[in-house]
C-alpha cells in the first residue's frame, strides 16, 4: 500500500517474475508428468497449456497495474532524466528494497517454512510432494495477492478472489482425495447455487448500502411453509406460488419499513425475520406433533431440481445450477447494461445525485428488498427439494454466509460499488474453501472458525476505510 503506483523498474521486475513463475511451474508439471509415466505428447501439451495460461493470466493481471507513465509524460524533461537516473539506481537494489519493505511478510513466510519443516519431521508421511507443492501454491497465491493489492488498478477484489479461488482449488485437488471428482464438483456447484441464489438479494441490497438479515429466516420459513402447504393437499405448483408471494410480501414489508430507517435496516430486517419465522412456525405447529419441523413427501420434480444426481434435458447436471447460471448472467447483464442497473448504482453511489436525476430512491430501495425476499423464498423452496423435509434451521448458515460471500466478493458495504459477478466469485471461494476444509477433516465448527478468521483479512485487503484525518 505504500506505493500505489509502481516505478518502471518494479514494473519490469514483476513482469519478468511472472515469466519465471510460468517457467518454473510448467517445468515442475513436466517433471511430474514424466515421473508418473504420462505419454510424452500429453506432457508437452499440458506443459505448454500451463505455461501459456499462466503467462496470459499474468499479462491480464499486469495490464491492470497502476503504472506511473502518465505522470511522467506531464513532467519536465530534466525531471524525467532525474527520475530515470533514480530508477536505474532503484533497479539495482529493487530486490533488497523489497526485502527491506516487506520485512514482516518475509519473516512470516520463513516462519511458515520452518513450521512446515518441523511438521515434516514430526509427522510421518507429511513430507510428500503433494504437501510441498501445495505449500508452494500457497506462497504463490500470497505473492499474487500482495502484488495485486499493491498495484491493481481496478477490480482488485475480483482479481484477488480469483487468485484465492484458483490457489484453493489447486491446493484442494493436491491435498484432498477426490476433490476433483465429478461428484464433489457437482455437489460443490449445487451448494454454491443455493448460496448464490440467496446472495442475489443480498448483493442488490448491499449495492444500495443496506444489509438484509432476514434472508436466512425467509429461507427457513419458506422451507417449512411449503412443506406444510403440500401436506395440506394443495397442488405443489400453487403452493410454490403462494410461498413465493409470501417471500415477495416479506421483502416488500422489509423495504417499506426500513426505507426511513436505512441506517438500521440490518436490525429491522432481523426483527421482520423473527416475526415471519415465528409466525410460520406457530402456524405449522397447529395440529402437529413436531414443533418447528414438518415432514412429508416432496414432489419428485422438485427434488430433481435440487438434487446432486438431478438431470436437466437428460444431461446429468443439477437443474438448480443451470437456474443459477442463467439468473447470474441475467443479473450481471441487467446491472451493467440496463437503465435499471445504472440507476441502482446511481442511488447506491450518491443519493443526492440520484435524486437530481429524478431516480426514485424509494422505488429502488423497496425493489431490491422485494427481490431479496423473492430469491430467499426461492432458495427455501429449492432447499426443501434438496433435503426432502421441512426444517426451519435450514436457513441458519445463510444468515452470515450471504454477507460473507458478498463481502469476500468485494461489493462495498457502503453501496454503489461491486456487482453480482463479484458475489459469484465470493460464493465460489467460500464453497471451495468449505469443501477444502471438510476434505482435510475439519468439523463444521472448525469451518466456521476459519470462515470467521478469513473474512477479516479479505475485507482488510480491499475495503479499508480511509483514515479519519483524510476525511476532514
Amino acid at each position, binding site marked *: 500500500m505504500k506505493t500505489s503506483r509502481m516505478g518502471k523498474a518494479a514494473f519490469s521486475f514483476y513482469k519478468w517474475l511472472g515469466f519465471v513463475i510460468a517457467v518454473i511451474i510448467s517445468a515442475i508439471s513436466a517433471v511430474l508428468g514424466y515421473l508418473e509415466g504420462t505419454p510424452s505428447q500429453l506432457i508437452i501439451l499440458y506443459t505448454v497449456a500451463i505455461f501459456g495460461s499462466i503467462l496470459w493470466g499474468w499479462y491480464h493481471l499486469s495490464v491492470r497495474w497502476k503504472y506511473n507513465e502518465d505522470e511522467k509524460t506531464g513532467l519536465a524533461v530534466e525531471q524525467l532524466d532525474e527520475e530515470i537516473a533514480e530508477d536505474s539506481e532503484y533497479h539495482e537494489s529493487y530486490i533488497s528494497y523489497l526485502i527491506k519493505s516487506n520485512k514482516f511478510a518475509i519473516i512470516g513466510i520463513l516462519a511458515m517454512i520452518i513450521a512446515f519443516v518441523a511438521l515434516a519431521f514430526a509427522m510421518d508421511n507429511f513430507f510428500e510432494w503433494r504437501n510441498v507443492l501445495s505449500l508452494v501454491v500457497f506462497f504463490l497465491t500470497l505473492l499474487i495477492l500482495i502484488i495485486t493489492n499493491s498495484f491493481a488498478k481496478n477490480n482488485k477484489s475480483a482479481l484477488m478472489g480469483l487468485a484465492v479461488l484458483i490457489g484453493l482449488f489447486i491446493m484442494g485437488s493436491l491435498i484432498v482425495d477426490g476433490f476433483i471428482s465429478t461428484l464433489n464438483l457437482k455437489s460443490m456447484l449445487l451448494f454454491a447455487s443455493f448460496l448464490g441464489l440467496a446472495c442475489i438479494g443480498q448483493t442488490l441490497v448491499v449495492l444500495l448500502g443496506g444489509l438484509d438479515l432476514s434472508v436466512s429466516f425467509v429461507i427457513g420459513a419458506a422451507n417449512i411453509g411449503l412443506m406444510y402447504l403440500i401436506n395440506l393437499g394443495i397442488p405443489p405448483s400453487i403452493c410454490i406460488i403462494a410461498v413465493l408471494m409470501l417471500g415477495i410480501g416479506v421483502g416488500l414489508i422489509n423495504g417499506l419499513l426500513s426505507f426511513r430507517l436505512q441506517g438500521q435496516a440490518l436490525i429491522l430486517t432481523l426483527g421482520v425475520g423473527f416475526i415471519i419465522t415465528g409466525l410460520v412456525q406457530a402456524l405449522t405447529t397447529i395440529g*402437529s406433533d413436531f414443533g418447528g419441523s414438518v415432514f412429508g413427501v416432496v414432489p419428485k420434480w422438485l427434488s430433481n431440481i435440487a438434487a446432486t444426481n438431478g438431470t436437466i434435458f437428460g444431461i446429468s447436471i443439477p437443474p438448480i445450477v443451470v437456474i443459477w447460471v442463467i439468473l447470474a448472467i441475467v443479473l450481471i447483464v441487467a446491472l451493467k447494461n440496463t437503465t435499471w442497473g445504472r440507476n441502482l448504482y446511481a442511488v447506491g453511489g450518491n443519493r443526492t445525485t440520484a435524486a437530481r436525476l429524478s431516480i426514485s430512491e424509494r422505488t429502488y430501495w423497496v425493489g431490491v428488498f422485494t427481490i431479496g425476499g423473492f430469491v430467499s423464498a426461492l432458495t427455501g423452496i429449492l432447499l426443501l427439494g434438496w433435503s426432502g423435509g421441512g426444517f426451519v434451521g435450514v436457513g441458519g448458515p445463510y444468515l452470515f454466509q450471504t454477507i460473507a460471500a458478498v463481502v469476500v466478493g468485494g461489493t462495498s458495504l457502503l453501496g454503489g460499488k461491486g456487482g453480482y459477478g463479484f458475489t459469484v466469485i465470493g460464493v465460489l471461494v467460500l464453497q471451495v474453501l468449505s469443501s477444502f476444509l471438510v476434505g482435510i477433516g475439519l468439523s463444521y465448527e472448525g469451518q466456521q472458525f476459519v470462515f470467521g478468521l478469513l473474512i*477479516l483479512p479479505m475485507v482488510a485487503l480491499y475495503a479499508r476505510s480511509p483514515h479519519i484525518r483524510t476525511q476532514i
Partner: protein
Amino acid sequence: MELIETQKPKSSPSTYLIVPIVIFFLLFIFATLRGPYLISSTGFGALIIVVAPLILATYALTIIVMAGRASVDLSIGPLISFVNVGMIQLIGLGFMESPIALFAYAIGVGVAYQVFMALIIVFVRVQPIIVSLSGYLSLVGLNLIIMPRAGGLAPDWMYDWGAGINIVSPVLIILIVATAAWYLLAQTAFWGNLKMMGSDERATYTSGVNVNLVRIGAHAIGGVYAGLAAITFTSLISSGDPTQGTTYTLMAVTALVLGGANLAGGRGSAFGALLGSLNIFLITYSLSTFNFGKMQAFITDMSYGVMLVVSLLISLAIPFMQKRARGLSPGLVFLVLGIITLGVAVHAAMDQSMGIKRFAAFVASTETEDPLSAGTIILFGVVGIAVLSYIIKTLFKHISASMIGFIIVLIITAFGLIFNPDTPTESFIASTNLKTIGLDYYSMSVFGLESISQSSSTYFSFNALANSTYTLIGIIGVVLFTSLIILIMLPETKVQTKRTATILFICTIPIIAIGALFFENANQGYLASNFSGETYAILLVTALLFTITIPLVKTKINNVNNLFIGAISILALIVVYFFATDSTPIHEVASTSIVVAGQVLDYTDPIIQTGIEPIATQIIEYAGPMRVNTNAQSMTIVSEITYCIFMVVLLHIFLRLAMGETSFRSFWKYWHIATFAVIAWSGLFYAIGVPLWQIIVVIAIAIISAPNVMHIISTYIIGEHRDDAIKKWEG
C-alpha cells in the same frame, strides 16, 4: 437562580427514554396481572438472576454502540459463551477455584477480546460490523470446539447464586456495582468524548480528542461488562453451554434497540439498556403465563421481532416527540407511571381477589355489568386524576396550586360518591370463590367500594360509614400525593407552587401515621381499620417517592441521572416492601389456609369504641395477616443488615435534601422537615413490621454519621454548583 427557574424548558436530551419507559410499565402491569407471582421476593429474585446477564450484555453493547460507526457488536453472545465455556473447562481441569481468579479470568478475556477488536477497527480500519461478524463466526466455531455440548459444573461457591430465592444475591450486587460504575463513568471527560465521537467523529478528531484511544477505551469497558455478563450467565445455568451465544446476541441487540439507543452512535444510556433488557424479560414472562403448548418458543421469537420492529418505527417519531412533548420530561412520565404500576402490582400481588381467578371474574363482570372490581377503580382513578390534573394544569397555566388542589379534592369526593356501591350479586361472590369476607378486609379490595356494599348488604351501621370514610381518605391520599408530585416535578411550575405543594405534602404525613397505627391494631387481631395495610402502603410508598425525589426538584428532572435515581428509588421501595414479607406467594397461602388456626375472632370497631355504642358485633372468620412480617424468622440476617443499611442511606439522602450543606448548623434550619421525615420513615418501617428498637438504632446511627456522609456527597454537590455556574456563564 430565579433566572434559571423562569426559563422556558428546552427539550430534554433524554426524551427518547419515554418510549422504553411507557413500554416497560405497560408490560409490567400486564405481567403482574397475568402472573402475580412475579411480585414476591422469589419472583424478583428469579427476575434478577435471569435478567442480569442480559442487562450486562446490553451495557456492553450500549457503550460500544455509543462509539459510533454503527458498531453493533454482534459477537457479544458468542463472547459470553466463550468466557463461560472456557471457565467451565478450566475449572474442570482444576484451575481457578477461587472467585478472584475467576473474575480476573472472565473480565480479562472480555477486555482482551474487545481491545483486540478495537485495535482491528482502529488500525486495520475495517467496518466494525464486519469485525464483529467475523468475531461472531470464529467464536461460535471455537466454542463448539472447546466444549462440544452443554455440560460441566460451576464452582461450588457459585451454586447458591443461581437459586434466585432471595432478592439480595451476589448477582444483584454485581449488577448494582456495574450500574454504579457506569454512572461514575458518565461523570468523566471520557464520557463526553465518547458521546461526541459517536455523534460526529470528524468534529471530535478536529477538536483534538484522541479518537483511537476513546474507541479502544469504549471497547475495553464493554469487555468488562461482557466478562461480568459471562459470570452471571454461568451462575444462572451453573454449567457451560456453547450454543447460547446466538440467542444472547439477538436478545441483547433487541434490548439495545428497545432501550432507545441510537445504533448510529452517540445516544445511549445504562437506564435505557436496563429498561430494554427488562422489557425483553417481561415479554418472555408474560408469554409464559399463556399456554401456547409447542408454539411457545415461536410466539416468543415472534414477539421479540414485533417489539424490535415496533420500537424501531417508534424511534422515527423521536424528533417529532422532542418537538411537541417539550414539557413532558421522562422523569415525570416515569414517576406517574411508576406510581400507577406500583398500585397495580401491589394490588395484584397482595389482594388474592385480584389474582387470576378474580381477573377472569372481572373480565366476565364487565360483560354482565357487575360492579367494577377494586383494582380497576384504583387504576382508573389514578390514571384519570393524573391525566385530569395535567389537563387542568395546561388549561389554566397560571392558576395557583391551592386552586388545583381544591379542584382535585372536589373531583375525588365526587368520584367517591358517584361510585355508589351496588349490592354485589351473589353470583359474583360465588364465581370468585370468595369464601371469607374477613380476608377482604385485609385486602386492597376495601380500597374499592365493594366492602362497603358488602357490609351494607348484611347490616347498616356506622361501620359502613367508617368504611367509606376511610376508603375516601385512602383515595384522596393517593391522588393528593400523585398530584403533588406532578405539580412539583413539572419544570414549568413556579417556585411558589412548589412550596405550597411541599407544605400540603407535609400536612398529609399524619394521615399516614394514623394509618400505620391502625394497621398495627389490625395486626394484633382487631379487624378494625379498613384503612388496610396495602392502602396506606401505597400512600407511604408514594410519600417516600416524593421524599426521595425532592432533591431532583432543584435540578428539574431533565437528565438521565435523576431519572436513574428515581428508578432506583422505586426499585428500592419495592425491595423494602418485600424484605419484610414472607417469600411464599400470597395466593398459595390464601387459598390453602383461609382460616388461620381456625380462630374465630370477636372484634369491635375501634371507631365505635371511641364513644358510640356498638351497634352490631359480628363474628367473622379471620384469615390472619396476609403479610406475615412480624415473624422474626422470616427475615434473614443478610436482609436485616441490608435493610438497616438501606434505611441509613435513605435517611442520609433526606438529610442531604434538608440540609443542603454539610454541617449541623444548617440542619437545624430544617428541623421540622427532618422531624416529619423521621416520623414518616419510622411509621413506614414500624408498619411493615420492623421492631421499634431497630428503628431507633437506625435513626441514631444515621444522625450521628450524617455529617461525614454529607462531606463525601458534598464533593459531588460542589461539582454540580460549578457546572451550574459555568452553564449560567455560557448563557
